[in-house]
């Protein structure tokens, strides 16, 4: 059978290209999204850095209690949720659907707790007079930078929680497989890693001394 015959009859294993880096297409798609999203967050944080560096009256209003304590709690919750996500993916790979679903829902709950803590902090800051355009402490750029960077991250967390619930339920129903949970896990870990940069740059550089 000639090469032309093979191509005319459709694909054969020998003619199909190997996936890039031997990674399945959906995982590669998630990695490409993560790279793009990492660049988006980097752009926001670098722009924040430009503003902060070039503005003489940048406020440093974050007191240890309650703001930094809240940031510690949020960090603990988010990092722990990465661990629970890992446990869920491992259970899924071992074929234990019940445990995988339970750990996925625990991860979603942790994400929801993070979001609630974050919104609570936002409301407290708004109560103190911080808006997108002015605040009682210094340059109005502070509020815009703070709410936009943390808001972008919060949006990713909320989207991740929704995805965890949807994919978890469909996984339990048999529509999705273990590798779908693994791909979603990549996104969730990425959201956690971004927080590792948001905390020092947005919160800890602006602690009230």
């Amino acid at each position, binding site marked *: 059978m000639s090469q032309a015959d093979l191509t005319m009859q459709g694909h054969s294993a020998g003619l199909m290209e190997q996936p890039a*880096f031997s990674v399945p297409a959906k995982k590669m798609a998630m990695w490409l999204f*993560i790279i793009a999203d990492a660049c988006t967050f980097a*752009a926001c944080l670098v722009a924040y850095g430009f503003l902060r560096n070039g503005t003489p009256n940048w406020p440093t209003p974050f007191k240890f209690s309650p703001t930094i304590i809240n940031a510690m709690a949020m*960090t603990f919750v988010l990092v722990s949720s990465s661990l629970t996500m*890992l446990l869920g993916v491992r259970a899924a790979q071992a074929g234990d659907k019940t445990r995988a679903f339970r750990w996925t829902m625990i991860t979603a709950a942790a994400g929801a707790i993070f979001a609630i803590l974050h919104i609570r902090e936002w409301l407290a800051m708004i109560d103190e007079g911080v808006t997108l355009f002015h605040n009682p402490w210094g340059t109005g750029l502070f509020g815009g930078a703070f709410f936009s960077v943390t808001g972008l991250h919060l949006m990713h967390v909320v989207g991740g929680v929704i995805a965890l619930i949807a994919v978890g339920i469909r996984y339990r129903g048999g529509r999705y497989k273990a590798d779908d949970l693994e791909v979603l896990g*990549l996104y969730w870990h*990425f959201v956690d*890693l971004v927080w*590792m940069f948001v905390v020092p*740059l947005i919160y800890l550089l602006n602690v009230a001394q």
Partner: protein
Amino acid sequence: METRTSNAHAAESMGKYFVTYVVILALAGLNFVIAYSHADRRTIFVSMLMVALIEAVLGLLFFMHLASEKRGLLWFVIIFTGAVIFGMQYGWTDSTRMEVGHAPYSQATEAH
């Protein structure tokens, strides 16, 4: 034998995940300590950024399993993300000019 081997492998992996989790938490705690140290602002910023980078690398390698993927994927992620982020750094000279009142290394004008 196979079950014992796969159980041992699974236990080893879980151990690795827990150790990575604890190390990442400890590094996050370290950042909070650095923030309240009495070093100058630049030292605090650089230290915290380095700690955050280490946390990110640990998360990438172990939580996101990049260490067990093909090396090509690891380099792909590092090179493309790194190149874009590196390219964003062009604005620091402008930012510094706003802080000091004139472009770095230039002659200060009379207005300043």
